[in-house]
Structures are given as C-alpha cells and as structure tokens.
C-alpha cells in the first residue's frame, strides 16, 4: 500500500513542479527540465506500482531490476550492438541513402523518368516493405549482410522521394541567375540545387534513421547468428528473461535517439540558412 501511495505522491509532485515551471517565461532551461521531470516521474511511478501491486517480473520488471541487468550484462549488450547497429543498420543506412541520392540526381535529369518514378516511389514508400525481410534473409544468409540489405530496401524510397523533391525546390529565378553566370549543369547542381535540397534530404535522412534500426532488428526475427538485438529480444522473450529484453530496449532507445539527434545536429550545421533553423537560434 505504501508503494502505491508513494507512486501517486510522485505523480502529484512531478505535475506540480512542471506546472510551476511551465508558468515561468520560456527558456532553454525550462524547455529541458519539464520533459526530464515528466520522464523521471513516469519511471518512479512505474517502480512504485510494480512493487506496490506485486506485478510478476515475468510481466513487467521494475526499472531498478532492468538497470541492474543492464549493468551486469554490458558484454552481451555491446556484442549485440555491434552486430545489429554497426554492421547491419549503419552499413545499410549509408548504402541505401547514398544510392537513393545518386539515383535522385540521375532521375532529375530526365523529367519523363521523374514523372513516372515519383508516384511509383511514393506508392512503394507507403508499402509494408518490412515484409521483404524473409526474402532478403533467404538471399543473403543469416549474418549481417541480409540485415544491411533489408535496411537498404527500407530507406531507399523515402530517401529517393525526398531528394527528388528537394532538387526541384530551387526556384526559377535562382536557376536563371545561375544561367546568366554561364554556369554548367554540375556547377548549378553543386552550388545551388544540392544546397537548396538539403532541408528535404535531411528530412529523408531523419525518417531513415528510425527505419534503419527497425529494419535491422525485425530482420533478425527471421533468422540470425546467435547474437544481435533482434535475436536476443526474441529468444529472451521465450525464456521469460524480460529484464534482459528491457535492457536491449533501453539500448535501442538510446541508439535510436542518439542516431536521430546526430542527424538533427548535422542538419543544423548544414542548413543554418533555412528559416526553420534561423528562428530557433
């Protein structure tokens, strides 16, 4: 009973603190503190309710148990991280996004292809491409190559569509100006159109970060060597070792957020001129 009361107390304190902070003038500090307090409150409540209601650790382990498991099995977690994220997701991400940008530049030269490929690309981007995973696992074997292939297929079309749109985003006046400077196709491409396309390209890159991790993890459900985050999650669920599953999820969450945050930081550095970035400074 005490734990449950403590849980409600934590919620009350957290909400009160946030309500207080929200009334202060908006600044960087409050913008950061409010979500952090909210997150901490949720974790404390989780701990209190799991203990207070005596929830079996097979159903939902308390955060403290997850943290202990995380600390105890860093070796396994690191091995899985290297297998899934570094080998599978990152390789596929770089290959897929690179291929999509090159393809977009090639397509951009032919309006005919562009009119045909954009609708098809948009259509494919909305399909459940993750279903390709079993086929690709069959083609490329169980190791990380097949995971990278799944990631390539998943990130390719969102990236292609965004880049093609981005390449069209420089307006007539700007392109005419480049013409009056007698600049060649490649000069226009590198000095005007690619920089102008950057906000779109980064939009695609950001979407692709999440897709890359999902693709690499889900592909492991269809077969993998005896390491990798997806493999560990599906086997640990079978063994009811849910604290290890949650530890893997914590890793996935940290990696996912860091990956996204890294791309967002890069975007800020590259597209500093764009209104959406200037406003926030």
């Amino acid at each position, binding site marked *: 009973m005490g734990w449950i009361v403590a849980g409600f107390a934590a919620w009350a304190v957290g909400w009160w603190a946030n309500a207080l902070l*929200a009334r202060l003038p908006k600044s960087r500090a409050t913008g950061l503190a409010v979500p952090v307090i909210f997150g901490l409150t949720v974790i404390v409540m989780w701990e209190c309710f799991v203990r207070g209601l005596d929830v079996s650790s097979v159903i939902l382990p308390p955060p403290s148990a997850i943290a202990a498991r995380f600390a105890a099995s860093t070796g396994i977690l690191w091995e899985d991280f290297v297998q899934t994220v570094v080998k599978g997701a990152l390789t596929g991400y770089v290959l897929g996004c690179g291929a999509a940008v090159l393809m977009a530049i090639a397509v951009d030269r032919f309006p005919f292809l562009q009119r045909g490929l954009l609708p098809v690309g948009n259509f494919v981007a*909305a399909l459940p491409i993750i*279903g390709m995973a079993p086929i690709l696992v069959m083609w490329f074997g169980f190791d990380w190559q097949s995971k990278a292939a799944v990631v390539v297929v998943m990130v390719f079309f969102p990236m292609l569509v965004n880049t093609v749109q981005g390449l069209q985003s420089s307006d007539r006046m700007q392109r005419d100006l480049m013409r009056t400077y007698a600049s060649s196709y490649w000069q226009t491409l590198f000095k005007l159109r690619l920089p102008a396309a950057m906000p779109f390209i980064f939009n695609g890159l950001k979407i692709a970060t999440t897709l890359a*991790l999902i693709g690499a*993890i889900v592909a492991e459900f269809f077969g993998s060597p005896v390491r990798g985050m997806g493999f560990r*999650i599906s086997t640990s669920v079978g063994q009811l070792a*849910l604290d290890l599953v949650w530890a893997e999820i914590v890793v996935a969450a940290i990696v996912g957020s860091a990956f996204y945050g890294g791309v967002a930081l890069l975007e800020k550095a590259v597209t500093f001129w764009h209104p959406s970035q200037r406003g926030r400074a």
Partner: protein
Amino acid sequence: MTRSILPILTVVAAIFVLWYGAAVWLNAAWAHDKAGRAGVELSFGELVADTWSQDKPKLPAPHQVAVELWDTTVEKKITSKRSLIYHSWVTLSATLLGFALGTVLGVGLAIGIVYNRVMDMSVMPWVIASQTIPILAIAPMIIVVLNAVGISGLLPKAIISMYLSFFPVVVGMVKGLRSPGVMQLDQMKTWNASASQTFWKLRLPSSMPYLFTSMKVAMAASLVGAIVGELPTGAVAGLGARLLAGSYYGQTIQIWSALLMAAALAAVMVALIGAIQRVTLKRMGMA
C-alpha cells in the same frame, strides 16, 4: 494526371522486365545444378523456361506469384486456412482496430497538448522521442506479456498498430489545431465565443486537411505493426504468419503472394482515406 500515365506505365513495365531478368539470373544456378545431375545441357530457351517455373525459386517470376494469388484468393473458400483472403482479414481487422485506437489516442493527446501548456512542454518531447525508439523491437514482448495476462488474439496486435499509428496523428493534429491564424482567433473572440465554440467551429474544422494527411501515414504504419505483431505468435494466422511460415519452409511463392497482398491492402486503405478526404473537404468547402 493524364500526362504522367505514360511515364508511370513505362516505369512499371521496366520493373517487370527487371523482375523477369532477375528471376533468370537468380534461379539459373539451381537450373544448371538440376540439369547437371540429369546429365543434359540446357539451351538458353530451356534455361529461361526452367527459371520461370521452379517450385521453390529464389525469386519467383511475376506470373507464378499471380497464379498463386489467384489460387489462394478466388479458388479457395474464404473460410479455408489456405485462403489468402482469410489471412488478409485477420491482419486487416487488427490493423483497423489499432488504427482506430491510435487515431483516437492521437487526437486526444493533440487536444491536450494544444490546450494545456504543461502537457505541451512535458509530453510533446516524449512523443517525438518515442518514435526514435525502434518500437517494433518490443512487439514480441508485448504479445507474450499480454498472453501471460490472458489477453490474446486481436488486441495485442492492435496495440502494436496503435503505438505505430498514434504518432503521425498527434504531430499532424497539433499542427492542424494550431493552424488558425491570430486574426481568426481574434474574430472568434470578438464574437464572444467560448473555448468549446472556438474548438468546434474554428480549430477542429481547420485541422481536417492535416488530420487526413496524417491518417494516411498512420494507416500504412498500422499495417506494418499488425504484420510484425503476427510474427512471434507462432505463425497461426495472418499475413505476417504467412511470411514467417513461408520463410521457414522456403516457400518463396507464398512469401511473395503474401507480400503483394499486404501491398494491395495498404494501397486500398490509403486510397480509401484519400477518397473520404476528397469528399469531406469538398463538402466543407476546403478543396
């Protein structure tokens, strides 16, 4: 629209040509292997014919998939476990339930975020952060845990679909509910409109275009969630189960037909939302 039909058809035709070509290329090894054991030399024509008609090809030719699709949809009874329509319905019902839950949750959260400053500051960053987490990774756990509590069948899959589909709705609706300009809000004020009147008569109507756009994204995400949600249940029923069973037994034609069926489902559902969007926005005078 009409002038882009020819380019689209060209691209689609190119995809089919590539597909047939790739089928020859990928299946040639097996064809040569078989011919070598039988002690015959394959001519090019025989090679092509063989690669396009193998039982368990690495890449089935499009017409093989089409035949399989025809066999499992039209020729089988809907109640049969071999009918793809039966499996599609299993997946579709989870998708729709999850989509409905996700849309309701998303709209609710968006209203809270727009009207409550504390929620805006504390929940919104987490909504965004929740999507950088590869949430599909925990799909097997959700299924197993809910099974342990005694909930099985439709709901666990729908919950995964819900998690994937609420995000686009929240982001779209927050944008949409905030889309009325200062002028319009001031106008409501001069008419002495209450908060609920402002909501029903100004904010909600002007958020409709945003809602439909994000619902299309949510529907596609919801289908992915339902398919992945079927993987850890041990391949009982549904398109995801067909994919998994196919990959266990090397039935590539079955995998491809399930994949194309999933693609068709996604396309039909998104097109349906698009149609509703056009009709609604037209009646509201916005399109």
